[in-house]
């Protein structure tokens, strides 16, 4: 019995040392929202946010700098990510590879929002996860969830296409294929 307890304690020690990473200032940073919040994306039917002005988000990036998005004059794709969501975990490397291959159109900005940050959930903290994935896109830390709420997030991953005038063109949920991401980029650039 004592041996069993010893084995259990030893095994627990091993596991915790490999999974716990230190949270950084990024993981606690809150985003500020400028603009009227969008309604929550309905599960079916027309999206009431299309044609409305996209709220402008400002917050801390992974490297400690400040990010403000979307910026006027630039079509933007915003990707809301949760560190614990397996769909987001699979989407991130896909998008990174696509971006590394130079497939992101020159005139489109891609910005991520790290939201749904919960220390008790798996794959915490998001800073360690995104670093591990060599994530390069500007990323806004949204520890309070204010940015996600302002965009009417209904599920993860959450995608928003904003055109050069700062108007919401399309919102989508779920793991998108590269073709679908390219459609979203095209929708953001279409006049």
């Amino acid at each position, binding site marked *: 019995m004592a041996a*069993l307890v010893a084995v*259990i*304690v030893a*095994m*627990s*020690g091993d*596991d*915790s040392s490999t999974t*716990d990473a230190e949270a950084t200032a990024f993981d606690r940073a809150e985003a500020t929202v400028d603009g009227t919040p969008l309604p929550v994306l309905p599960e079916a039917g027309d999206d009431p946010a299309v044609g409305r002005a996209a709220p402008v988000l400002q917050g801390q990036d992974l490297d400690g700098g400040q990010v403000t998005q979307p910026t006027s004059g630039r079509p933007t794709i915003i990707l809301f990510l*949760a560190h*614990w*969501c*397996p*769909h*987001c975990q*699979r989407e991130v490397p896909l998008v990174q590879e696509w971006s590394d291959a130079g497939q992101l159109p020159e005139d489109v900005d891609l910005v991520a929002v790290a939201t*749904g940050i919960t220390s*008790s*959930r*798996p794959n915490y903290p998001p800073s360690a996860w995104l670093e591990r994935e060599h994530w390069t896109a500007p990323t806004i830390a949204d520890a309070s969830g204010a940015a*996600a709420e302002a965009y009417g*997030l*209904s*599920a*993860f*991953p959450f995608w928003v296409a904003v055109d050069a005038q700062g108007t919401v063109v399309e919102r989508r*949920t*779920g*793991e998108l294929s590269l073709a679908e991401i390219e459609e979203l980029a095209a929708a953001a650039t279409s006049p």
Partner: protein
Amino acid sequence: MHSTDVAITFFTFLTVLANLATLGILAVAGLARGPWPVARRGWLRLRRELAADGVTIAWLVATVCTGGSLWFSEVAGFVPCRLCWVQRACMYPLVVVLALVGLGWRRARPVALVLAGCGAVVATYHVLLEHFPSLDSGTCDPAVPCTLVWFERWGFITLPYMALSGFVFIITLLLASRPSPSSPRRLDDDNSIDEEDPVPPLPFRTPSSSRERTP
């Protein structure tokens, strides 16, 4: 955080134990269909043992699963999702239903089988969803997603896998301990088994049952 790790490892150990016991019972049952008289005798002996104690073991499994489920949600803070709740709705009543079966209320036996069966089906779907998240909507619910894997040991032991192991072990115990037509009295009267029992008692018999055996 550390106590959570210890609890996960403890329940992982119990899960593996339940898996081995289930496979053991199924292996003996399978071998008994072969031409070996030893295997057949072993299966009959195992069935006699399980006819006496199988329901009690099943009740213990349901009780430990219920305790573990409550510990993970209330102490460790793992918020149960929609699928977790269905599995809970199957596991928690089993504590009462299996107690009734153990007390001799035979009509409760099919109820226990149905509950454990439903639980096993939902747990199987939940385990599959953990490995193939796209089976569901392809998205994660922001509040309590079913796709969230709270922990994973050895690449396959997760919370719904633990539930599945419990349900399958309970089903196996219930089926292996069901009264056979040739010995209708065995379940009700523990003493009658031992009087006509040519097999010596196994070493892991509980002290209380050996005391009952002395005339």
